[in-house]
Every structure is written in structure tokens, then in C-alpha cells.
């Protein structure tokens, strides 16, 4: 639904985005990753039409991005804020009317969301009387109230306690099920693995990695396994199948990290071992997104 094509954005002295292209499919949750200052916010600001790119284009639902699309996009910035002296209900109403809702619809929806998120009696409270977490909730409601097709969340869980973070996560998944597409900018990798279908990694103004989370993780598999067993066995005797990286013995259980030789599979390992030992577990070592992130970003630094 959203294609970002060869975007270049330059500020006074530095290039914030250098020929960045990404593709976001309808109904997916897309993770936009990268260290601080990589250019994530610049990219988001272009998608939300806060700024315009120097070159390149953004296609939204087959059309070049324009002001008609504002009402179809919801944006929760990382640095959140509301008018401090304004009452909550009035404020959310105002923000949603700016997105094109009429008063009656907006009021109905605000009531619905306030009920849902257990904040029904907040309507007449002022923002300055709310805790930070409560303000975040209000802002989340303001972001999704106009039922945008594309919802952009910049670090949505920062400032939430675990209970509220969980509530928001469930709301995100719920909205996603109803068809909303998400762009999810973060550097918290655990939430990426939980939520995202695909990601793009931006570092130093350039996209350095993108694709579906599963594929990326698969491509980072390097045939490494943990194996745990009881019994005596000469591991070096099977050097044609695997080589040993690490070997520890604790409470009579051997914990061994191995790498498969080319062309061999985990089955070959089991075949070789089963007759002799009592196997407790066999796990493939799959790199976490966190590992990939650090590896990619650090690798870039070393170049």
C-alpha cells in the first residue's frame, strides 16, 4: 500500500536519507529500525507529509502522496505532547476533527475508545492532571480514532508500564486484524520479533537491510545448534558431520555447541548420537533481531 521510492532528503550539511526505498504491504506490521539519528524520523516525517523529500517519491494506494491522504494516516510521534490546559475529551475531539471527522462521529468514537481503555471518566480532566502513562493512552486514542489505513507509531511503548504496554499491544494487534497497516519505528528488538511481519533497517541515512522477519532470521542461520545429552561419546569422531565450538559439563549433562558441516542436517547429528547417548534437547541457534541489528550496525561501523 505504501512504496517509498529512492528518497533523498538533505538538511543544511548532512544527508538525512540517502536513496532509501521501502515497500510496505497492506495489513502488515512493518518495523522501521535503526540506531538513533539514522534517519527514521526523517523518513516518517516525509510519509506523514510534515516535510517533503528533495527527490524521490512516496506512493500511497497507487497515488502519489498528497494532502488527501492525511486523513488516512495516523501518527504517534516519539516525542508526545498534548495541550496541557485543554480538557482530554475536547482535545481528542479537536485532533480528530482536524483529521476530517465530524463532531457527532468523533464524539461517539471517543466514548467508545475511552470505555474500552478504561478512561471513561477522564473526559473533563486536563492533560496536566494526568500521569505520563495516562497521557500516552490519550494520545494513542487520538492517533487511531479516525480509523486510518496506515498507522505510524514511533516508539509506542516508551513510557508505558508493562500492564498498559500489554493493553496497547493487544489494541495494535486488534486493529491490525481489522485491516490497519502499521509502521512501527523502534529500537526495542523484542517488540519487533513479537509484532512485526517485515522490517527495514536504516543506518547512517541508508537502508542496509530489509525483508520479512522470518526470512531475515533464516538468512542469518549459520547451522549452529545446542545439544544436551547424558553419556560418554567422543565428539571428535564425527568431525565429518559437525565440529564442536563449545563443550561444558554440568551435573552430568553435556552442553555442546556445534556447527554442521556443509550438506549435513540436524538429523545426521541425531543419527550419529542416538545409539550412544541419552539426548535431552537439540536447539538450533537462531540469531535474535537484536543480534542481527547489532551485527549489521556494528559491521557498518567497521567498514
Amino acid at each position, binding site marked *: 500500500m505504501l512504496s517509498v521510492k529512492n528518497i533523498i532528503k538533505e538538511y*543544511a550539511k548532512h544527508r538525512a536519507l540517502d536513496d532509501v526505498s521501502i515497500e510496505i504491504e497492506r495489513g502488515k506490521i512493518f518495523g522501521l529500525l535503526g540506531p538513533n539519528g539514522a534517519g527514521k524520523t526523517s523518513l516518517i*516525517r516525509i510519509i*506523514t*507529509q*510534515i*516535510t*517533503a523529500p*528533495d527527490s524521490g517519491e512516496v506512493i500511497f494506494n497507487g497515488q502519489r502522496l498528497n*494532502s488527501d491522504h*492525511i486523513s488516512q*494516516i495516523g*501518527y*504517534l*510521534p516519539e*516525542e*508526545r*505532547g*498534548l*495541550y*496541557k*490546559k*485543554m480538557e482530554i475529551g475536547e482535545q481528542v475531539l*479537536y*485532533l480528530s*476533527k*482536524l*483529521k476530517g471527522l465530524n463532531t457527532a462521529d468523533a464524539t461517539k468514537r471517543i466514548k467508545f475508545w475511552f470505555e474500552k481503555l478504561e478512561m471513561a471518566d477522564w473526559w473533563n480532566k486536563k492533560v496536566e492532571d494526568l500521569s505520563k502513562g495516562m497521557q500516552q493512552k490519550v*494520545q494513542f486514542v*487520538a492517533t487511531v480514532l479516525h480509523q486510518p489505513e496506515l498507522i505510524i507509531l514511533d516508539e509506542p511503548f516508551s513510557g508505558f508500564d508493562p500492564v498498559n504496554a500489554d493493553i496497547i499491544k493487544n489494541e495494535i494487534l486488534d486493529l491490525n486484524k481489522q485491516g490497519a497497516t502499521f509502521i512501527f519505528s523502534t529500537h526495542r528488538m523484542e517488540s519487533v520479533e513479537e509484532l512485526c511481519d517485515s522490517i527495514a533497517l536504516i543506518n547512517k541515512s541508508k537502508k542496509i537491510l530489509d525483508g520479512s522477519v522470518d526470512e531475515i532470521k533464516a538468512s542469518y542461520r549459520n547451522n549452529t545448534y545446542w545439544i544436551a545429552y547424558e553419556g560418554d561419546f567422543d565428539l571428535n569422531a564425527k568431525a565429518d558431520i559437525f565440529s564442536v565450538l563449545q563443550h561444558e559439563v554440568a551435573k552430568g549433562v553435556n552442553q555442546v555447541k556445534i556447527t554442521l558441516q556443509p550438506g549435513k542436517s540436524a538429523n545426521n547429528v541425531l543419527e550419529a548420537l542416538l545409539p550412544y547417548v541419552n539426548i535431552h534437547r537439540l536447539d538450533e541457534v537462531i540469531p535474535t533481531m537484536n543480534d542481527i541489528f547489532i551485527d549489521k550496525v556494528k559491521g557498518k561501523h567497521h567498514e
Partner: protein
Amino acid sequence: MNKILLIIKREYFSRVKKKSFIVMTFLTPLLIAGIYGLIGYFTYTGIKDTHDKIGVVSANKTLTTKLTSSKNVDYKYLNQSLDDAKLALAKEDYDYILYLPEFTLNEPKGIELFGKKQAGLSINRRISDDLEEIIRNQKLQESGISQGDLDKLKTNVDIETKKITADTGKEESSSAGASTIIAFIAGVLMFMFIMLYGIQVMRGVIEEKTSRIIEVMISSVKPFQLMMGKIIGIALVGLTQFVLWIVLTFTISTVVATVFIDKEDVKKVANTATAKNELATGTDAVSTAQGPLADIQKSLAGLEVGKIVTVFIFFFLGGYLFYSALYAAIGSAVDSETETQQFMMPVMMPLLLGYALSLSVVTNDPYGDIAFWISMIPFTSPIAMVVRLPYGVPAWELALSMAILVAGFVLTVWVASRIYRVGILMYGKKTTFKEMFKWFTYKN
């Protein structure tokens, strides 16, 4: 367009509903009316009974019984020695003892005033004036001029200023005094309005920036819409306040005027003054009692209040738009109000200069070169023009000044909006003028 309207509404109602706005709006006219009432009250009572009682001990034959009481001073000749009078002062109901020693008329020396309290400048002045007049009359009589001739010498000159307008050739009755008063009020009001409301725009921008709502806002509306919405919304707040002030001040003043200074009273005071005193001082009292009121009423009629108010509103809007755009740009460039100092200076200076020049040079010479030029340059014209207006301004000058002001604010709004759209997204950097210029040149 619809979005600008929403923004204007929010900016307007969030301010108009504030307690401080309501208090300011209703209290100020009360204060103005109060001051007006006080002035009226004092002119009224001042004639009647704010006078000092003075016991006179005279060792001087020529001056005995010559001092006569007037509206502010009561003289009473005492048949006591100075020492006795001094001792008795505490018990008596007069405030001072005036001692007149023996002296020749050419060399009046040794006159002393003893009081329960330190004598003020005005009473001192009054007594010496009275004495000087008596001595002068005495001298004139000695050189052969009769009392009758002396009375004939007293004349009262009252100049009625009229202005002939170039357009119609019509004579208009006006009062230089009333014009100046109205020019002052208009100038001060204009300065206040532009300052107060311009700074409100700046505060509003800073508030949006520091509360970080700005990013949410401009993902829904264009920065220009947000800026203009805010500026127009606050302008309407200013207009509301101005109109309410005029209406309330007018209403309250009328009420106060009828309660405190009704015409019966003024006449009565005048009559008693005439009866009690010499004819000359009596007419004096009447003219001071009726003078300011009659003057203002007369010249208000000549001044075309409607025109002044209309032009005032136009120049308020124009000047406010001109300056508030600059204030919005400043607000967008800083992270907090404390950082605004360096940018405020260059914006404040022309406004202050215009204010100072208008109230000094322009009121003294409303048709001079300086008056002309500062009422053309849009930085100073809003104040200078409303100050000049009560003295009469040729229509073409007014029109030209208005046109320049409109062009001026279109320009500042354009420049400001280019700085604003970049500035509102910049955080944590100390901005310089050089940087602001760079923002101005950014493409998008």
C-alpha cells in the same frame, strides 16, 4: 480552509474562556471609569472644600485685612501676638499661621509660615501669589491707578481652536487638548495591544513546541495553516477585548458621570463660588468646572469618533499581523521563553521607537516630516497613524499608509511562515539569525 477555522476556534475560545481574560476585560473599563470618576470627583470637591485655613498675624499695616479668602485658602486675621498664636495653633482649627512682619513694599522680607504639618509647595505658592498681587495692586494704586481701573485690567482669554480641512474647506471645531488626550490614549492602547497579543502568539507557538504537540498537529495541517489559525484566533481575542472595553467603558463612564457630576451640582458650586469671592476668581472656578467636560464633549463631536475607532481597528489588525508574524517566527525558533531575548530586541526596538516618537514628536508636530514618515513605515505606522489621526490626516496619506501596512504584513507573514515551518521541528539547538536565514531559504 475548514482546518484553519477549527484552529481559529480553538485558539479563540481557549483564550476567551480563561479567567485572566474575563477579569482583565471587565476590570479594566471599571478601572478606567473609576479613574474618570475620581478625576470628576476631585474637580468637584476641589472647588468646594479642599482649602487650608490660615491664621494671619500681621505686624504690617499695609497688609492688614487685604488678604481675602479664595476657593482654596481661608485667611483669618488674628488679634494675637505671634507667640500666642503659635502656642494656640495646636488647639485651633486653622492649619497654618502666616506671619507678616513690618516691611517696605519694595523689600518684602521675613514672611514666615508655621504649620501643624510641613507646608506643601502649592500652599506656599498660593500665599506668595496672593501677597504678590496685593503688593502689586498697592504699588499701582500708589502710582495713581484706581481700583476700578485695576478691575478693568482683568481679562480672561479662552482660545477656541478650529481646523480647516483641506478636503472640504469646512471649519471644524476641535480642541488641541482633547486631540492630544485622544492621541495619547490611542497610541498607548495600540502599543499595548500589539505587544500583548504579539507576545501571546509567541507564547502559543512555544507552548506547542515545548509540549511537543506540534508534530501531531502538522501531520494533520500545514504549518502555515497552524500559524495563521493561531494569529487570526488571537487577533479576534484582541478585537473582542477592544470592543468590550469600548462598550463597557462608555457605559460605565456614562453612569459614573451622571452619578458624580450632574449639571445641577456644577452650577451650584459655580454660584456659591461667585457669591463668596471676587468676581474674577468666581468665573475662574466655573470655567475649570465646566472646562474639561465641555471641551471633551465638544471636540469628541468634532473628532468623528466612529472614524477614529474604525481606523484604530484597521491599524490594530494590520500592525498586529505585521508584528505577530515576526513573533510567531521567534517562537518557532526557540525551545523556551527564556531564549527569546536576543530575537525580541530587534522586533521590540522599532515598536518602542515608534511609540516614543509618536507620543513626543508627533503630538507636538502632527504634520511634520518625522510624523509623516513614521506613519508610513509599517514598523511604526500603526502607532504613529492613530496618534496623528485626532489632529486630522489627509485622506491620501491615510490610504497610502494603510496600503503599505497591508503589503508589509503580507511580507512578514510570508517570511515568518518560511522560518516557522522549519523552526517548529528544531529542538535542542541554540538558533542564530544566520540559521533562521538558512531556514528561510529551504525549499520545502
